[in-house]
């Protein structure tokens, strides 16, 4: 299928690792943003490609992480994570990630939600920080080295949340056109808008979608072509996470994964057995 987009807007999964290579070739140590919310809209097909042996371990920002980070951890393709949560909610744990953490093989930067989102908003509006009262007094604020600033009008002390600016962010959505206009989720679930906040803080944005459609068929774009670097069509590209309104999370696979881990199976093998379709891409 050909798409009438910008020459290089539409890419394929084969181009994914090259995006990281290109950033590293310029001397950057890129910070990679990963969208999705816990078990929803995780760009798992892209993540699987980032687990290639040719991709050196990554620095990642994923606020509500789950299988994205579990996948990278099982393949030992992550060395630093800025996050507020890594888990499967009430459905279980992330043993590969937990093992890396327990072995001190990864740097964890635990942020509160306001630290993370204020950092993204600062980046999105081109400022070095945003003032906030969030996280006050916590060890999270101390660990992150947050500093305070005085309000120039009242003298009140406020935390300065530093800008959080991923070099590239990977997202998954339902539909986009070949220009890079990306539809908002058709079913508005919990934090449906979080991906747009992450995207607008990022220098480059790559979005896998279930379908690339003509522009006229878009319903309500939430990201626009001038904000999106690449799109790629990957049906079922968020599986085994959920795309609300399109397909659910793979509850059976998640249960099988937890059962295998409880039975002593090593995480990478357990992932391979529970979610063979991701490895087959």
């Amino acid at each position, binding site marked *: 299928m050909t798409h009438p987009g910008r020459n290089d807007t539409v890419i394929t999964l084969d181009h994914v690792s090259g995006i990281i290579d290109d950033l590293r070739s310029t001397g950057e140590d890129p910070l990679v943003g990963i969208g999705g919310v816990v078990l929803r809209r995780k760009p798992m097909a892209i993540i699987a490609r980032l687990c290639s042996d040719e991709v050196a371990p990554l620095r990642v920002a994923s606020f509500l992480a789950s299988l994205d980070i579990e996948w990278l951890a099982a393949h030992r393709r992550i060395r630093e994570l800025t996050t507020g949560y890594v888990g499967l*909610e009430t459905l279980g744990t992330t043993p590969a990630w937990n093992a890396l953490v327990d072995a001190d093989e990864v740097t964890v930067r635990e942020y509160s939600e306001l630290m993370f989102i204020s950092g993204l908003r600062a980046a999105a509006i081109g400022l070095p920080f945003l003032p906030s009262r969030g996280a006050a007094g916590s*060890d999270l604020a101390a660990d992150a080295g947050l500093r305070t600033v005085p309000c120039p009008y009242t003298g009140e002390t406020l935390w300065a949340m530093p800008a959080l600016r991923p070099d590239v962010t990977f997202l998954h959505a339902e539909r986009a056109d070949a220009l890079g206009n990306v539809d908002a989720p058709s079913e508005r679930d919990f934090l449906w808008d979080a991906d747009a906040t992450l995207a607008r803080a990022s220098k480059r944005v790559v979005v896998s979608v279930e379908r690339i459609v003509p522009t006229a068929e878009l319903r309500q774009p939430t990201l626009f072509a001038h904000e999106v670097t690449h799109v790629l069509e990957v049906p079922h590209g968020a599986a085994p996470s959920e795309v609300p309104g399109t397909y659910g999370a793979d509850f059976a696979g998640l249960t099988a994964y937890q059962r295998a881990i409880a039975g002593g199976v090593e995480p990478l093998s357990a992932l391979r057995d529970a979610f063979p379709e991701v490895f087959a891409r």
Partner: protein
Amino acid sequence: MSSATTNGGHGDVSPATRLCWELARQTRPDDVLIVGVGTPLAATAALLAREVLHPSLTVLFGTAVAPRRIDLAASILDSTAAPRAAIGNYTQVEVLDLVARGGVTLQYVSPIEVDALGNVNASRVRRKDGGWRRFPGSLAIADTAALVGRLVAYRVGHQRRFFPQRAAFVSGASAVERANRASVRAPGAGVTVAVTEGATVHLGERPQLVDYEGELATVVAEFGFAVDSTASRLREPVPAEVLAAIDVIDPLGVRNLEDKDHRSAVLARISNRGGAPR
């Protein structure tokens, strides 16, 4: 103490059921109460409070505003269940703005530890080798401890490790201790009350036991800090009409997902959509 509670001789109820009622009792008529999406026990408690205590209570289910009847079991697997049942939905930025300007007055939180002063830890504890054992993460607790009117900490399992003298790590700061918290004029009261199936305790410089279930000495011994129990009382049974309301709100017993002894059974029930014991 996480198998079943006796409900004052009126038939056993699960610890999660007892907790739902005790959490509901912490609400006030005009509260704006926010509960997390992955916390079905807190969600049941919030809906219960609105149903039997305070119809004027505003419940935010994540970003979903004042949802009507929710299928809690469906919401575990379907993230659109609560938003569909809501009057409307905030965006993430909008709900954080609401929290930041003091628009949320109550939150239930389920940390790993809560100490005498109300510092909460949802992040990590020390291992025996001196390293840290990390938990999934503290989400917005650092923010809500500083900004939400008051927080109520809860946990299934009335155990000493939940109530240390000092939290090993402060994910959310107490309002009565941390100087750098006061310097930014954070308006929230932090965690002022902790609730388990065994007891309710007011936290602060002089923690006070409010009520308890079972033997007083046994309950008090599970606190890692001194607790004044002189004004405490035995808990009343959970009223029959409350149990009936819980059965309607949470017919599959999804609230028991927050009890590790019941988790796998609940997941199986969700999968099969069968009935649930009380």
